[in-house]
């Protein structure tokens, strides 16, 4: 559920991101694009991981698949925006089919199954040279505009996607779908027993978690102009997304946005200042997050943080 304050905060945030090209340099604009893109991924993941409580690590499979479908379509002369739509549809269909099989698993098995999907996608794309270029990757025709215009364009694209997925989150959280998913997360057997078609609901949630990730992947490919399997299906990225949601607050609508923004900013800071140690620092952020912010930034209780720092026992479980 989202409050009026939450909506206003989100609107302000969109305005801040959208106006970066007016007053900030390229680097900041690029960061704004990354923030919007990761917000799309985190908000999408929220459907399956936050609302439904299924620990999916398949996000990057949808992202990579979207990137490749978009790239291949564009290389074959399909106009850019049509290629993105195509990517959305293909990824959505893929997720629906995959979900109806994979969602029979629970807990660790589901987590592993979803990781395996990422690996299989990466390996298949790497070895299917004739279509995907294999390990050499693919070049995508670049937009022939000035670099500034290109950046503004892709910022707007990612922002629009972010707004769509945000609205979808807000809608679902008020709708019976969100109510049902919330019930499934708490007790799937009981959810079945009160008349929720749990299989259908879970597949819908899984598909929603993929749809716009596919679009974002395709748009990302058009933006950077080059993709390869290791980058497009990186396991690091697939773990980042849930971490962002946890950082912000899982199952809330604003949480993923806050989480994605803070994570990308933190990452940028670490990358530029501690080149050799950025991975370790991110690891420490994760560890800190789990021990001191188990409910995410949105549910920070400063008293508890203080108690923990003083070394009192009792991690919420």
């Amino acid at each position, binding site marked *: 559920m989202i409050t009026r304050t939450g909506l206003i905060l989100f609107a302000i945030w969109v305005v801040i991101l959208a106006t970066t090209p007016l007053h900030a340099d390229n680097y900041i604009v690029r960061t704004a694009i990354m923030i919007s893109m990761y917000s799309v991924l985190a908000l999408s993941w929220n459907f399956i991981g936050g609302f439904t409580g299924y620990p999916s690590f398949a996000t990057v499979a949808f992202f990579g698949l979207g990137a490749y479908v978009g790239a291949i379509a564009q290389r074959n002369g399909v106009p850019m925006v049509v290629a993105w739509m195509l990517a959305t549809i293909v990824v959505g269909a893929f997720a629906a089919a995959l979900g109806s099989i994979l969602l029979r698993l629970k807990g660790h*098995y589901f987590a592993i199954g979803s990781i395996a999907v990422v690996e299989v996608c990466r*390996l298949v794309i790497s070895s299917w040279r004739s279509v995907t270029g294999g390990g050499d990757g693919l070049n995508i025709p670049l937009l022939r505009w000035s670099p500034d215009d290109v950046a503004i364009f892709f910022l707007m694209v990612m922002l629009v996607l972010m707004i769509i997925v945000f609205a979808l989150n807000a809608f679902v959280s008020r709708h019976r779908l969100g109510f049902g998913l919330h019930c499934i997360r708490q007790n799937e057997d009981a959810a079945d027993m009160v008349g929720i078609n749990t299989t259908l609901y879970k597949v819908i949630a899984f598909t929603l978690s993929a749809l716009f990730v596919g679009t974002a992947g395709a748009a990302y490919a058009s933006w950077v102009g080059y993709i390869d399997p290791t980058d497009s299906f990186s396991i690091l990225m697939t773990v980042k997304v849930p971490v962002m949601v946890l950082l912000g607050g899982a199952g809330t609508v604003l949480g993923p946005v806050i989480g994605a923004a803070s994570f990308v900013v933190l990452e940028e800071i670490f990358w530029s200042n501690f080149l050799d*140690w950025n991975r370790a620092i991110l*690891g420490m*952020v994760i560890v800190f997050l789990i021990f001191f912010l188990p409910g995410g930034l949105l549910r920070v209780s400063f008293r508890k943080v203080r108690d923990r720092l003083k070394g009192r026992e009792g991690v919420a479980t």
Partner: protein
Amino acid sequence: MDIGQILVNGLVLGALYACLAVGFSLVWGVLNVINMLHGSFIVLGGYLTFFAWHSFGIHPLVSLPFVALLLFGIGYLVQYLFVNKVVTAPVLTTLTLTFGLDMILYNIMTVFFSATPRRVTLDLGTLSFFGITMPVDRLFGMALALALTGLLYYVMRKSRIGRAIVAVRMDRAAATLMGIRVNHIYAITFGVGALMAGAAGAIFAMVFPITTNLTGMYIGKAFVVCVIGGLGSVPGALVGGLALGLIESISGHFFGPQHSLTVGFLVMLFILLVKPTGLVGKRGYE
């Protein structure tokens, strides 16, 4: 290549995989935690063995027990200080936590060891029998891997600690009532998992070049072995390991080695869906 060679290659590889995965399987089965640090533990074990050999001329067989013990200590501490605090939390929490810890360990290793592939070359020559050739160091590695896996099996069944681990796995609450210190047992279990990872790393360093880039692949193999064989038992890991070794060597022969990993994952997905308990599938760690 003839069929005998393919099978022998697969079995040798499979024994190594069993040893690689058995610690992962133990932790998962007993603690219900997916230990994303496992791959880094393996590489760490391999590196330590390599440097002991390279810088001080210590034979891997001599350093192996020390490396394994060191890894045990690290594993014990990781569990005692971190994972124990959230061990009953949902999957996502424990998995993310071990992933975060792994990022730290991985980073430390890349800074200190760099990503250069390293290997202990023992130069033991090759052995030929019935038209099958096999480097002796691999056979040696296989024997060692099987011996260590067998030792773990024996310890789990016969020792007090082993029985305490089984008891905790079966029923945590009852084990507490029986006076078992569950947190301590959990830490030991995690330590044993790390110990086996370290030992597997030491063996791998004698057979294949080791680099930090391989942590992800090792974890992937451990997943596949556990799911195929069945979680939480030494025989499960053994069956899963041998099965994966054979799958890789056979599919590598028919589709080319670059696809063997894909086939392994596909088999794993298939087994996950039709028989999630794995081929050996039973409960209780034995």
